[in-house]
């Protein structure tokens, strides 16, 4: 199937220019690339602009309740462990009302890739600040600037012992596809944070990370086993100094042995990278590990323990004849 064959005939109802279009497009291309089977693929979402995505993809889909997509997806996985279930959610959906279900999904390690559209705002309800909004953000519910501290989806996931965390962006199609494929390939819950521009209510929130002119100063890409290199000339790297990640020049210049080598299996450094919430941020797979997958454990335990027939159950324990 071609990418466009994965689209339904529904009119896509996002605002013109919304970053959601890119994510939708990359997802259909990823579906083509991995040969997703529409009969066995399920998209589960909550409520929000982002959560409308399942309507546009020609697979099984459920547009559920605000915040509850992780629980619904867990139910689908318990019933159909072999289905390819994807979770589609927004920063409000996943981190405000749905934060608890998300962390429990991550801890249980239900085998689903999670596409978390982070636009740092509630789009669908017309622009209130969200848990990922930056302090001071002006919005309909904070016309004079929000005072809330922001939640960091990636550190939160590390706190819940997630087995995969990664970050990408609506405006980096190739990278986004790569990350989606990696999240799908991961065995367990894979949280992919996607910076997504809401051009109506929070335009430019990620401008410094996505605008070609600035991106080189504000972003770096991590890859397992590769040095972390920063800046136009790739002459800087990171180091941990008393709990802070600092940018240092490689010295002597070009000596890569001085560079921080990215190890996706190192949870501590992953946490350090995930904490980088300022003007310089990592993209790519930040952490990954292997852990037992929930629905498999459930069914393994059921098989081990043995299942009883109705006849046996009804006659178990003390019975007598009259």
């Amino acid at each position, binding site marked *: 199937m071609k990418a466009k064959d994965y689209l*339904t005939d*529904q009119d896509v109802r996002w605002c013109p220019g919304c970053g959601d279009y890119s994510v939708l497009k990359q997802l259909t291309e990823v579906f083509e690339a991995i040969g997703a089977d*529409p*009969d*066995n*693929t*399920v998209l*589960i979402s909550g*409520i929000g602009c982002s959560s409308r995505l*399942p*309507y546009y993809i*020609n*697979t*099984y*889909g*459920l*547009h*559920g*309740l605000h915040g*509850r997509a*992780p*629980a*619904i*997806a*867990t*139910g*689908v*996985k*318990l*019933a*159909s462990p*072999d*289905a390819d279930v994807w979770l589609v959610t927004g920063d409000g959906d996943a981190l405000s009302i749905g934060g*608890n*279900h998300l962390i*429990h999904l991550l801890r249980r390690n239900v085998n689903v890739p999670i596409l978390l559209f982070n636009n740092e705002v509630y789009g669908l309800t017309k622009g209130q600040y969200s848990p990922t909004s930056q302090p001071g953000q002006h919005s309909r519910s904070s016309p004079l600037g929000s005072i809330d501290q922001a939640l960091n989806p990636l550190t939160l996931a590390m706190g819940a012992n997630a087995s995969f965390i990664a970050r990408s962006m609506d405006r980096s199609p190739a990278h986004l596809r790569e990350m989606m494929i990696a999240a799908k390939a991961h065995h367990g819950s894979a949280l992919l944070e996607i910076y997504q521009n809401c051009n109506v209510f929070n335009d430019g929130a990620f401008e410094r990370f996505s605008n070609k002119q600035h991106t080189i100063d504000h972003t770096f890409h991590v890859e397992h086993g590769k040095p972390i290199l920063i800046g136009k000339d790739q002459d800087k790297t990171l180091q941990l100094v008393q709990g802070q990640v600092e940018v240092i020049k490689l010295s002597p210049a070009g000596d890569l042995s001085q560079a921080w080598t990215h190890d996706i299996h190192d949870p501590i450094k992953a946490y350090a990278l995930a904490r980088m919430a300022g003007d310089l941020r990592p993209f790519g797979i930040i952490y990954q590990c292997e852990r037992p997958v929930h629905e498999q454990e*459930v*069914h393994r335990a*059921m098989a081990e*323990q*043995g*299942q*009883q*027939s*109705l*006849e046996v*159950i*009804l*006659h*178990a*324990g*003390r*019975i*007598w*004849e*009259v």
Partner: protein
Amino acid sequence: MPDSSHKIVILLAGDSGDGVQLLGSQLTQGAAQSGQDVRTLSDFPAEIRAPKGSIAGISGFQFQMASTAVHEPGGQADVLVVFNVAAYVKYRDQLKPGGILLASTDGFDKRSRALAKLAPDEDPLEEARVSFRTLECNFQTVTKEALKDMDLGSKAVSRAKNMVVLGALTWMYAFDYIMVREALANKFSGELAKVNDKAFMAGYYLGETAEWSAFKHVMPSHTLPKGTYRTLSGSQGIAMGLAAVAHQSQRELVFAGYPITPASDILHELVRQRSKGITTFQAEDEIASVTAAIGASFAGKMGVTASSGPGISLKAEGLGLAVMLELPLIVINVQRGGPSTGMPTKMEQSDLMQALHGRHGEAPMPVIAIKSASHAFDVMLMAAKYAMEAMTPVMVLSDAFIASSAEPWRIPDLSQLLQIRPTEADISRMPYERDAKGVRPWIPVGTPGGAHRLGGLEKQEGSGEVSYDADNHQALVQARQAKVMGIQSSYPELTLNLGSKSDDMLVIGWGSTYGSIHTATEQLRRQGHAVAHLHLVHIYPLHPDLDAVMAEFKQLVVVEMNQGQLVNVLRARCPKHMAFIGQTSGKPFDALSLTETLLNTMSS
């Protein structure tokens, strides 16, 4: 000379450490196996383990046994067995004047009296001897003596006291002691089995040696239909009923729950039972459990969830989603004393209006009420039938009383069970294209060519795509309603539980009040009053013949353990005056006083 009345109510009470619930279940099991009909009622303390010897920590177990059919655990007790003075103080008012008090005197010493906060010089046994026929025995000593060659600490001895009492009562009511002994042998193993057996036999011989023959009471045997029997609690009835659903529908189930008293026992039973085709899931909360169950139903298995009080309130939004998605779902509400956290271990029927209306928007769903443990089994099959055949969530109402109450139950013949034919995965229809009964297809994830999208937004009739069209919404609100009304065609006939249409007064109830109402009505009829009893199983939609039945009677009374819920539903559809008898004390109606109240209602 052994007495031989037909009905006896026995109330057992002691510290949570005294093993009263175990004693009760073994004893009623023995009674049932010896040919008695039995109904039980547990009264748990609110605390896990309140201070030893305190009144707050007393756990009670009451049962009624009879050689004819019984329907409720009885009102005032004929026999009260107490392990300590606190138990006596808590329950003395529930023993009939002249009833038998079997007291373990070791629990009446100075220390025990202090723990029960009595005055140091107050000896309640003195008073007891005047009001009751007392049997006083230091069971601690008897147990110690019985186990003397086993080298046990005094705690271990104490813990076996209940077995001595079990033995003594088994003798007293001439139950088949071999069966009781066998049951103990099956339940316990190793050292503990030996200890319990010794203690049990010591108790059994105690009656003879202690010359309690005057208290011996041989019960005539109840003639039950032939078959294989077991005892069943409401929680077991539900768990086994779900196993039967998987069997009858050929669909697997996913049960998702979150612990809460008294609903948790359903989860406990299910995990113990390890039923073929049932996956259990302990979720992070009640919202996750209802939505996970919905996810399972979307995937094509039957989602089931259960909770009580606060947990049911939390599921409101999820239930509305299930209504909109038109997916099968069973939600079981084991009602308890409310509002809010209320009285978690006590019974009440105060969630009926919530079951009907506790969701935003027009969100109709069938509501069925369980009336007893064995009925629980049948109701699960009905609920699943409606859910899977009409593609709708179904609410089942149980309560704290039913959950733990036990009764003998004839194991049904599998070939006789209700047929369930889940809606087919008909991909030739659009996802919201209804069949003649107004039901859309159920297309499990993985069905080739079946890919479709559902959601909580209003949808276009047929295609299921999102629609904000006014006429479509109007039509769908009505279609969802009509579909639910459609289950009426699968209802069994509406029959009076007692009496006939020619009677004057009809007593209407639902749920766990069945036994008390039945007993009270029976009593009135015996006294010559023309009273009938109708116990509603289908609360929504009501039975289509109900209006006609109500119209036949001169007088209508509704009895509920709430402040008036079903009665208002019925009043809205029946112009006749309808009397109401309500109670919200956390306890079941006492059949005797209910009889009187009904009598007053009749003559007023």
